């Protein structure tokens, strides 16, 4: 059971094809907890640490999009150019674990684990992010809505891995909000990301930790866009914001578990949605 350490994407493709049952190791912040505390026996490991290309990111200003490598740690999204272009992602990144966790944990790791509580995932859903996947049969692009298919389940095929994620640079307000039991070092009990494209007059909202997958609230979005204008110059009636929150809560599918109750989660996520919408007009 070796640890295989490719140095390039090409080597990674080859090694993964030779060892399709191998486990990919990115920051280790999920996997090592399984090993340390839950008796997981490591299988053949493929370390991504030294595949430099995976931690790169770039902006395509002509297409108004940003592409972030699967291996970029959260710490690199909290500040600077990425935070300026995708503020909701920076806000989500800043709520992940602690500085030590954010120095290690990656976007690709969040997508690989695909936990409903993954902090970056509602942002990717609200922005209609595209996941660039590489595998034995070449490259393919997967929309986020087709990527996350269940609790800790994604649609990656054998020997496929996430190379990078592209998301649009949107004109307008965007934000991420999260409820947990503390201010730092907390896995969310409910989270939400709202993106308001004030050029197009479009809103999108996605929820975390209140269903088996991240949930896009298409019903509430459509209702809001029919009810009012979301363009830059418009104003928000607080009663509309309240009903938006209630409609979002109705679209959530939370459960009772060790972290919270379904009832609390449904309430909290509605409050988050209302609050994010109000913030987008303040």
């Amino acid at each position, binding site marked *: 059971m070796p640890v295989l*350490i490719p140095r390039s994407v090409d080597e990674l493709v080859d090694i993964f094809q030779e060892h399709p049952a191998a486990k990919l190791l990115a920051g280790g912040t999920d996997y*090592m907890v399984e090993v340390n505390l839950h008796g997981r026996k*490591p299988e053949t490991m493929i370390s991504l640490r030294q595949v430099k290309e995976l931690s790169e990111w770039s902006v395509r200003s002509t297409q108004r999009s940003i592409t972030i490598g699967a291996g970029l740690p959260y710490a690199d999204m909290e500040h600077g150019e990425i935070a300026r272009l995708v503020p909701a992602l920076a806000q989500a990144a800043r709520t992940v674990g602690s500085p030590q966790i954010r120095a290690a944990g990656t976007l690709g790791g969040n997508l690989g684990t695909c936990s409903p509580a993954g902090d970056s995932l509602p942002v990717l859903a609200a922005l209609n992010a595209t996941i660039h996947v590489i595998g034995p049969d070449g490259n393919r692009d997967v929309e986020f809505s087709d990527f996350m298919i269940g609790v800790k389940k994604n649609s990656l095929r054998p020997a496929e891995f996430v190379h990078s994620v592209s998301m649009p640079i949107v004109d307008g307000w965007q934000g991420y909000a999260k409820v947990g039991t503390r201010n730092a070092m907390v896995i969310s009990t409910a989270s939400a990301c709202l993106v308001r494209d004030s050029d197009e007059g479009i809103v999108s909202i996605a929820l975390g930790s209140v269903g088996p997958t991240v949930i896009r609230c298409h019903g509430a979005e459509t209702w809001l866009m029919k009810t009012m204008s979301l363009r830059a110059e418009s104003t928000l009636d607080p009663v509309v914001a309240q009903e938006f929150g209630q409609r979002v809560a109705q679209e959530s599918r939370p459960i009772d578990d060790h972290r919270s109750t379904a009832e609390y989660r449904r309430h909290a996520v509605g409050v988050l949605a209302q609050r994010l919408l109000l913030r987008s007009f303040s």
Partner: protein
Amino acid sequence: MSINIPVSGQSNEIYSLSVNGQVHQVKDAWIGESLLYVLRERLGLPGSKGACEQGECGSCTVIVDSKAVCSCLVMAADAVNTEILTVEGLGPNGALTDVQSAFLSEGGVQCGFCTPGFIVAVHHLLESNPSPTDDEIREALSGNICRCTGYGRILEAVRTVADQRRTNS
């Protein structure tokens, strides 16, 4: 070519880690061993402490390639070709660093279990941000848990070192 680091399930494979500027060979390791375990149990470096083993407490904080991380969440065999710095490697020849002295003078140490993790995290903070605000100190140390001091004296120790370094520079 890729490196096939031969770490095996049970048998006698060997890999090397660079810790505090010295190359150490790790023998007979199990693949699932964390960097924390290898440092403490195989390399004789017990300064990094193990408590939660899930990245919540920060007691095991070390620097890997200039980043402060939880060594309990690093697979040791995956840390080959990195530069690892532990609390033992901060001061020259075992002498106390200014951060360690300030923790003593300001009363930032009680039971001491969390202290090495804090010391490493503070060194890392002041390296990148020599004049942190109180909020920046709190955020930088939000991954290190202390159950004794109530944090006030730890924050004071960080302020003291930052002031000293400014005065001396």
